[in-house]
């Protein structure tokens, strides 16, 4: 067990190293970090060279990489070129917003799709199942900005026009400290995320329940006279929940990154939007910092998921 975890941890470190090299090359070279000064009349070419020298941008790339890595290991992700703030501070300001949005979404999605998935599986090929199946197929064929823009058009723009109580879109300035305001601003982005998320999850739950319901031990349970309800909740659901554990475990680190598109459409002050804003400016310390945090979370959670899995499913042995 511990040997397994240790081996996985070493592999994970290697993977993380590759991630940092890859991301460093891509982000460092994708744009000139000093592009914002290019048209500044107050800075001469000599000034720019001096600044470049001071920031260490004229050193060979491997040197820059190891300097960055050395500081990153100690928790210092450098400063943003644009806002001059430390990257870790910027992330810690945005992270709570993202987590509130994403965890609300994740919990609602799991609950809704459990209900839909169970109904679908138990009444396979019924009208209700067909409706749910159709919706989930359409749902995961849909880019999220389709729903995001549509919901904005209807519930924000049109409702305002028609004189109904309308939902805010986030384009307006709002007080993030006021809990009521906060929740109001969350409604639209969370709903859009839930619709898309449910499409995939519900389908997945349906499939895994159906798979379990077709197994011998379920037939045995039925044969010994258990009620359908008992069979479903006592036997089938528990085993059907196993693959769900994996999926959720692998999705959780993704929640840190937030929903880039949804956050951008609704101007939600979260990580996804932070990433997008600074990626556009070519501000590589910020972009690199966010990438490092999210992918480390992914790598760590993959190991945790695998280990947890052996606890919930004793049939699986770590090797």
């Amino acid at each position, binding site marked *: 067990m511990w040997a397994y975890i240790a081996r996985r941890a070493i592999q994970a470190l290697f993977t993380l190293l590759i991630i940092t090299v890859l991301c460093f090359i891509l982000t460092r070279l994708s744009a000139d970090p000093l592009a914002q000064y290019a048209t500044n009349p107050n800075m001469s070419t000599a000034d720019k060279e001096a600044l470049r020298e001071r920031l260490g941008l004229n050193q060979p790339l491997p040197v820059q990489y190891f300097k960055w890595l050395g500081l990153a290991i100690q928790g210092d992700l450098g400063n943003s070129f644009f806002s001059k703030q430390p990257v870790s501070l910027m992330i810690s300001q945005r992270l709570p917003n993202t987590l509130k949005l994403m965890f609300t979404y994740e919990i609602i999605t799991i609950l809704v799709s459990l209900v839909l998935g169970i109904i679908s599986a138990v009444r396979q090929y019924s009208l209700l199942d067909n409706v749910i199946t159709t919706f989930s197929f*359409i749902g995961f064929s*849909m880019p999220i*900005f389709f729903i995001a*823009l549509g919901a904005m058009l209807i519930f924000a723009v049109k409702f305002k026009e028609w004189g109904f109580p309308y939902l805010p879109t986030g384009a307006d300035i709002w007080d993030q400290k006021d809990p009521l305001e906060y929740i109001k601003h969350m409604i639209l982005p969370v709903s859009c995320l839930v619709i898309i998320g449910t499409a995939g999850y519900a389908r997945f739950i349906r499939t895994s329940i159906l798979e379990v319901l077709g197994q011998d031990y379920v037939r045995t349970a039925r044969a010994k006279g258990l009620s359908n309800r008992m069979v479903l909740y006592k036997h089938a659901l528990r085993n059907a929940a196993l693959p769900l554990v994996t999926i959720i475990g692998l999705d959780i680190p993704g929640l840190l990154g937030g929903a*880039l598109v949804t956050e951008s459409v609704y101007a939600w002050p979260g990580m996804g939007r932070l*990433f997008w804003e600074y990626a556009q400016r070519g501000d590589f310390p910020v972009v690199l910092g966010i990438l490092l945090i999210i*992918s480390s979370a*992914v790598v760590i959670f993959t190991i945790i998921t695998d280990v947890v899995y052996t606890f919930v499913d004793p049939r699986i042995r770590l090797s």
Partner: protein
Amino acid sequence: MSTSDMTILKAEPIAPPLTPQQLIWRRFSKHRLAIWGMLGFGLLLTFIILGSILVTDKKANEVDLQARLSPPTQLHWMGTDSTGRDIFARMIHGGQISLIVGFLSVIFSVSLGAIVGGVAAYYGGWVDTILMRFTEAMLSIPSLFLLIVLGKYLGRDMQTITVFGQSYSGSVAIVIVVIGATSWMYLARIVRANVLSLREMDYISASKSLGATDVRIFFRHLIPNTMGAIIVSSTLGLAGAILNEAYVSFLGLGVQPPTASWGNMLTSAQSFIQRGAWWMWVFPSMFIIITILCINLMGDGLRDAFDPRSTRHL
């Protein structure tokens, strides 16, 4: 066995056994939704190909400031956008771009995935370790973030490309590479797993002892035997690629205007939706959704056809 059975058997002409392809087709054609998906996709292709012949790309890029933001009318069937370009014509040419991007990036990612997965499994050892760590590293970065970073990296300088007398923004080529390079990882893993088990088969040792080269074994024996997985994942990958094109273009990193794509048409819709220009949003979205839905349905049918054990999925 009684004699009457024997006579029946003799009277019936024995059909030649079905080839694997026929079996797959038979299973596929029983999948009603998949057939609908195929029909829908065929219609869509016809629409775009016929449309491209009938409506020139000049028409799609024609600016008419008099007719800015016009709702659907007799003249402009799907309305016009913020510079008065006809949305119907742009749908056709945008669809052409979206599908070209989809197909080419799938070809790119499938080749990459098959080669990486195949090489890793066939050679094993440190080649396998390094390739699979790299695959895992790519998989650990959320795909949209990776798309953006790679898009920014490759999009530093762009030129205009001319193919068949039509000029495309160089961004099209970049988008293809970006999407292809960020979506090969799952296939690489599937191919690796398949090749790992195939490698131990007797016929591989047989061809080795007959003196077949690695390249020959790879392309003649290993890859054809994982074709099922490759076909299924490239079909589903096509849907993913078209969706990804829409995402990166929507974020302004993809296909650059004036070349239309379904994704970048939606980018401009974003700013005008507040003013109620619903047609700019509805038509491109509908085409994206229908296309992807059809391809996904086909992919589902193909998966069931290639892997009879998974028929329960629908």
